[in-house]
């Protein structure tokens, strides 16, 4: 009985100390982690996708709700007026999910560009979809919102040879993004 009590007491003390230490540590790092994610992951991509905006893109982010799902929306402003938006969608690549940030020029219905936020593709092969050579191909393409889902982009984009699956993952993400774009546009028009 004494032995059992000893075991319980020691374990409880260890667990409590560890738990308190961890929650303290988490508290300390929480803010930094959030900033790190914004700075390292989304920041550089948003800045590239919405090039030419005059506002602080990270500071002007907001979360909106579309069809029950939450979307983190970045808004680019020129002369105080919003001109472009960007947000992330997922596609399936060869190694796993591909997170793609797509930017839209909301005045002219054009793509301002795409960036790969995160991926699990093979280095040197599938990872080529993250390079500018590929992502630049999407810049400035006009969108036809009334067309069939496959034909919404006015130009056909070639896949990278050897990275067909990764390229298809990017297309899939863009397709989903376009779907969302239509919904967001409706919402924006109704609120403004």
């Amino acid at each position, binding site marked *: 009985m004494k032995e059992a009590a000893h075991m319980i007491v020691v374990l409880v003390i260890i667990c409590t100390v560890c738990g308190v230490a961890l929650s303290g540590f988490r508290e300390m790092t929480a803010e930094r982690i959030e900033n790190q994610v914004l700075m390292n992951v989304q920041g550089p991509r948003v800045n590239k996708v919405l090039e030419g905006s005059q506002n602080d893109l990270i500071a002007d982010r907001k979360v909106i709700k579309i069809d029950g799902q939450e979307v983190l929306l970045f808004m680019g402003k020129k002369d105080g007026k919003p001109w472009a938006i960007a947000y992330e969608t997922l596609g399936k690549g060869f190694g796993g999910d591909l997170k793609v940030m797509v930017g839209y020029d909301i005045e002219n219905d054009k793509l301002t560009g795409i960036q790969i936020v995160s991926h699990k593709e093979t280095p040197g*092969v599938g990872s080529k979809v993250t390079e500018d050579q590929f992502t630049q191909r999407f810049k400035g393409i006009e969108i036809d919102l009334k067309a069939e889902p496959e034909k919404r982009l006015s130009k056909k984009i070639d896949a990278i*040879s050897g*990275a067909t699956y990764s390229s298809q993952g990017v297309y899939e993400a863009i397709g989903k993004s376009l779907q969302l774009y239509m919904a967001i546009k409706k919402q924006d028009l109704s609120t403004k």
Partner: protein
Amino acid sequence: MKALDLTVSPAPHCHCGARITRVSYNILLALIPAMAMGFYYYGFDALRVVAASMGSAMLAEAAIQSILRKPITIADGSAAVSGLLLALILPASVPLYLVVVANFVGIVVGKQCFGGLGANPLNPALVGWAVIRITRAWAGYLDFDLALVNYETGFILQYPLAVLKAQGSAGVAHFSLMDLFLGKQVGGIGSSAIIWLLLGGLYLVVRGVIRWEIPLSFLIGVAVIAGIFWLGDRTSYGSPIFNILAGNVMIGAFFLSTDNASSPVNQWGMLVFGFCCGAMTVVLRSWSIYPDGVVFACLLMNLFVPLLDKIKKKQPLPPALSPVTPPVMSKSAEERSAS
């Protein structure tokens, strides 16, 4: 049941002449017509690949054996057979360093690491092919449609199985089955010469180098499973005959799956092994991202060989008939079995 009355005489014994060298050289001989067809269609490029492949396979074997201080056995021809088999399932335009890497990995990792000839659980040629096939930066070299686009061969320059995968059975309607059978199809250097592979394989069966069970059940496996797929959906899957005549099935049935060390030793095991190879081939053709599945099917089934060997246990000799028993005992055994 009457037991056989076997007697084993004391030494000297007489050797029947079966040795590894004879097996290897017979296989090489059986592959010559298919190889010649490759040379005929693809010229010097095919010759280059075959020479590099056989050379590097033998070099790899000699190198690893000298490093491990084992007797060097390249003269038995087993490395040459692996090299030739690998070359015959590659397109003629493949860069030579690819061939060399494939052979080194196949021989060193697939064969010598496990203890050399007879101890390899996988066919070394298939290991080599699989390694370069799943290297995605190199996959373009092994895509027959891309690789063979610059050749003048006088037949349709489309890989039948890739067309089947992309367009369904309507896309392959213009391939005449006779052409496929005569080897007039895009494919590996030798793996597309169906009729010559069939003849070579039959020669090996007749000579007793390979057993008939594996090739026959392999082809039956392809036909049955392809038939099931085909009857289920005729628009997207090929007919059983098309499946047998296109791609690597013929070379797989007679040469790739019958590798002595990596196939079962007893009859039922062989039949199951061959049938499953054929069945897996069709399943991979239908559902995987690869147009042809023969190599992966054979590799997968190679892994099941230790299990398949257990299907039928070897019957131990009755104690009375074992060689060490004196003749007196054997007589009494005869009396016992007669009564």
